[in-house]
């Protein structure tokens, strides 16, 4: 008898403005159901302090960064606590194109 395991992968797309840090435009993580914060912790582990500096400021998403889960800005969800399911797609984009410079 064969046992099939369904692997659920979160897909993360990076803006080209992050390419000099991530050296890729896309990655996948196997995390199961989790939160944006856990995904970011994992990405910081993978891409290092440069990535963290670019995305986070004192543990919060920086003013110039928009992070979307399935197209929804996490500022309209629950911020870093927004839930992420195993099959979700995350996009990290500069706010200059997607909007929202908070003062």
């Amino acid at each position: 008898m064969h046992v099939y395991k369904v692997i659920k992968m979160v897909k993360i797309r990076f803006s080209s403005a992050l390419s000099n840090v991530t050296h890729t435009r896309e990655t996948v993580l196997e995390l199961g159901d989790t939160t944006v914060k856990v995904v970011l912790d994992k990405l910081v582990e993978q891409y290092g302090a440069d990535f963290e500096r670019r995305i986070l400021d004192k543990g919060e998403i920086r003013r110039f960064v928009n992070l979307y889960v399935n197209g929804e800005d996490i500022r309209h969800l629950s911020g870093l606590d927004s839930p992420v399911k195993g099959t979700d797609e995350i996009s990290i984009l500069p706010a200059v194109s997607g909007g929202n410079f908070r003062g």
Partner: protein
Amino acid sequence: MSHVIGLKCRECGAEYPAVIQNTCYECFGPLEVNYDWDYISDNINKEKIASGPKSIWRYADLLPLESERRVDLGAGFNKLHHAKRLGAVLGLDELYILDESVNPTNSFKDRVTSVAISKAIEFDVRAVGCASTGNLAAAVAAHAAKAGLPAYIFIPGTIEMGKIVQMLIYGPNVIAVEGTYDDANRLASEVADSHPDWAFVNINIRPYYTEGSKTLAYETAEQLNWQVPDHIVAPLASGALLCAISRGYKELERVGLVDSSDIRLSGSQPLNCSPISSAVQNNCDVVPVRNFETVAHSLAIGNPADGYYAKCAILDSGGYAASPTDNEIIEAIHLLARTEGIFTEPAGGTTVAGLKKLVESGHIQSDERVVVYVTGNGLKAQDTLLKSLQRPPVIKPALSEFEHLLAPEHNIYKQQEAVHLARI
């Protein structure tokens, strides 16, 4: 020797060559065009401008193009109306309106698009595109047609039929996206990011694009005989327009064409979608709005790209921001048409309604020289406006039937008379 040095990050100052890029790779901040101001100051003067083309290109020395290959449908060089009758109704001594409804595709977006697509030609791109609430879509579609480039245009599915008809006629690829402008814009951003040889005018070549709106300030000053207003009122959507107008006046002072750029900047945004106005009124962060519905579709941006900078520019200048209701917006469209003969869409109605509110609240003083930017044409929003109008009465072709209509109980005619009393 060129007047354009390259791009520069507004936040950290990092410099880049003039390429297709809108974000700083160091800090994610927005990029803006970095000019050689000494070169420009040495090469610009009033006589040269006066003898230039009757379009935005008379100010080419202050625009980010490095070649003469311009995609020009004739944007700009529009009339600055001395709005005496509207001024009298509102209690303003000196009111002017720059009428942008008469541009080639009937909104101010022709200015930014002519600059952006000319720049795209310099970059030798394979296609152009934009995210749009409708006006930019028409401008991009028309200029792309003129340039012979394919266009990819992302719009929210809810905009006015008049705008959809107008953009489709030029033959672009139009993609209607479920959700709001912000959803369409986010998707277009990702598309632009995956196609480095496509130029999305308000996304990856945004630093050049926003420069086109500076010509609104240049044109105003030139028509005021190189004087500046005391106070300007502009519509607020992404906030980029108000920032560009402010920059335009500052640059005129910098190159010595005007003596001062000390101008109060005020904005107006529809109450149901007013993240920038709310931030100004409460002196707080610009908080994005997710769900909104307003008649002013062209201002319906919940997540404004330049909201932070627009808020700062308004507050730093001593201006303020209004947020009129949909009813006030429609009433202002009627008021502008009936006093000045200018037919604007709800974005222009928002600006005029905002002007009225700012005068009433004392944020604009009666003795200030005020310039209002009316950015789009009412013919694009006929479906919205038809609901606010009475169908004309149908009569038999007999004089007696007409005389009957003049009877006092037919108040449709009395309404118009009341406004006419404010004759100048």
